[in-house]
């Protein structure tokens, strides 16, 4: 009796009916060539499964999950952050000039934007020498000196009294960690790469002038809008940010 390749494949894949199964099993007992074909088919499938099984153990890029979670209806987040007054945010947004007004802020970003606009920055010197806190390197602007130090060490979740402040930390579409910062000489967004912190956006800073206190202005809102455009998902929360610093911003 001959068994076609199709029949044999269906038999091995559990795709044939009971009658065909019984017929092939019976035939295999009397036919060593057929028994060997079945053995080889099964060995092949096992080898395939084992080989591809190992791929499942590799951790997937974390920004994929961030991408997905960012699309979830934000019921839980709003409930978890009752201090945010959405009406106030909308009112503030309508006063913001330029493209920022068109932004639809996802809930997790609102906290950062609110914090950025409500924090009273105390200015105590710093950056007095007026040197640019970045340098051109291989066609990219790379953070230097005080800015590089602040990007490496300061947490957005723990606001400092320093002139240079971190507004938010997030991952961009490439999975790189990026940070929005605001300072006297320059504000902007820098993303971490092999050569350190590369500046992706640079905006004029907010000079300290004479006032000791100031309210962070619309430049911060503009930065947050840029950050939201670049980000794949929500900004890092305090714990994630601390962990990212521990991991060297990788």
């Amino acid at each position, binding site marked *: 009796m001959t068994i076609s*390749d*199709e029949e044999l*494949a*269906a038999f091995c*894949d559990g*795709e044939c009916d009971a009658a065909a199964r019984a017929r092939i099993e019976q035939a295999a007992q009397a036919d060593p060539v057929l028994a060997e074909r079945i053995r*080889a*088919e099964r*060995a*092949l*499938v096992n*080898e*395939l*499964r*084992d*080989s*591809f099984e190992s*791929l*499942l*153990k*590799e951790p*997937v*890029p974390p920004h*994929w*999950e961030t*991408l*997905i*979670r960012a*699309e*979830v*209806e934000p019921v*839980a987040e709003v409930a978890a952050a009752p201090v945010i007054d959405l009406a106030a945010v909308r009112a503030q947004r309508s006063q913001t000039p330029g493209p920022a007004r068109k932004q639809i802020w996802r809930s997790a970003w609102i906290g950062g934007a609110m914090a950025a606009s409500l924090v009273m920055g105390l200015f105590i010197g710093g950056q007095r020498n007026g040197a640019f806190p970045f340098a051109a390197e291989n066609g990219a602007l790379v953070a230097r000196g005080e800015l590089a130090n602040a990007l490496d060490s300061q947490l957005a979740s723990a606001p400092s009294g320093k002139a240079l402040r971190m507004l938010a930390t997030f991952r961009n579409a490439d999975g790189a960690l990026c940070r929005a910062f605001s300072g006297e000489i320059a504000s902007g967004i820098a993303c971490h790469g092999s050569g350190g912190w590369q500046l992706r956006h640079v905006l004029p800073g907010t000079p300290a002038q004479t006032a000791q206190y100031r309210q962070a202005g619309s430049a911060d809102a503009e930065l947050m809008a840029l950050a939201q455009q670049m980000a794949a998902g929500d900004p890092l929360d305090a714990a994630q940010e601390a962990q990212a610093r521990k991991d060297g911003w990788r």
Partner: protein
Amino acid sequence: MIARQFADDLVALLPKMRRFARGLARDAADGDDLCQATIERALRSAAQWQEGTRLDAWVYRIMRNIWIDENRARARRGPVLPPDDAAFDIADASAQGIEANVELGNVSRAVAKLPDDQREAVLLVLVEGFAYKEAAEIIGCPQGTLTSRLVRGREALMRYLGEKP
């Protein structure tokens, strides 16, 4: 906007999606690009998914369609070669690339050498464990077409792997 359950299910599928993408694309980086494009399209089209149907089959169908479109676009951009030669060149170059870059076993290299239609049949049925009917639906071909591709793919794999003299 998507439901939390949909997000949870999609996140749980990511390792398998990534594996299928890598199998189709035959390259880790291309596979990840394909997987990310699939995630983005699945999120945009989430409303079209019917609850109660298999999410994995739906996502795999999206991935396969993106991959086919991408291949067509690439073929249009590339030089015009007779189809057989082109398939052979691409398969060969890619197999060498995999050999050089990643630590992959003989099996993955053998799978990478298969023509596209046989490779996707082998991946869906033998690796991912879809039934013939489901695999045929994902590909959008009659079940008989799927089975014959599967049989040819199996034979070629056995030859490459020395299971058959």
